């Protein structure tokens, strides 16, 4: 499957905007990606190995958090995974 890399993470993936990985599940795909590009790991995951709260993963047009099998969802070569850091802000302080 193809994993789309957002602008801020491209320096850690040799400048690529997309990386092709062979994987059976989303988790395997992420594992393959971070094995090839270890520098991506700390930007995607906390030290405990959990996906950082502000990192969104979209499997085609679906938020991985809301898929029944989440990261264990099966993938095929034609699927895409988009890594999208969140965008928010504003005047108010919470």
């Amino acid at each position, binding site marked *: 499957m193809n994993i789309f890399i957002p*602008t801020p993470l491209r320096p850690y993936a040799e400048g690529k905007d997309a990386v092709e990985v062979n994987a059976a599940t989303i988790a395997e795909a992420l594992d393959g990606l971070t094995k090839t590009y270890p520098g991506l790991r700390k930007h995607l995951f906390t030290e405990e190995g959990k996906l950082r709260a502000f990192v969104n993963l979209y499997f085609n047009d679906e938020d991985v958090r809301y898929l029944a099998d989440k990261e264990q969802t099966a993938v095929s070569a034609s699927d895409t995974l988009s890594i999208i850091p969140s965008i928010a802000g504003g005047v108010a302080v919470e």
Partner: protein
Amino acid sequence: MSAFRIKRNVYDSIRAHGEETYPHECCGALLGESTPNGWRVTEAMRAGNTRTDSAHNRYSIAPLELVRIEREARRQGLEIAGFYHSHPDHPAQWSATDFAEAHWLGCSYVITEVAQGKAVVTNSFLLTGSTEEEKQFVQESIQLEE
């Protein structure tokens, strides 16, 4: 101070967006190309503000909308260079919330002060640093291009 280059019509359009949504915050993405001297923005894509609960002082772009914006950028051979939003009746300076919620390292965050419905000051801040823990906003000069 590093430079942030943007086409004049794009600059005008993001300021107009802030006037249109006043007294609510507007938001959108900036598309362009990376050059050795920094970003050169050639297009802006408006986004909906999902914070309808507090749109006068908060903004958020739905991730799926970002996914689609990135697809469009890719189709045009451009990159997401940064994002813009407005501060209704507040200065064009980043807030603590803007900083806490900024995660696109290496991208520019453009803020326009809209006072009484009129776009006044627009500033750009580059999110520098190589990790979330050491990120910083650095103001950059805006250079308009025809």
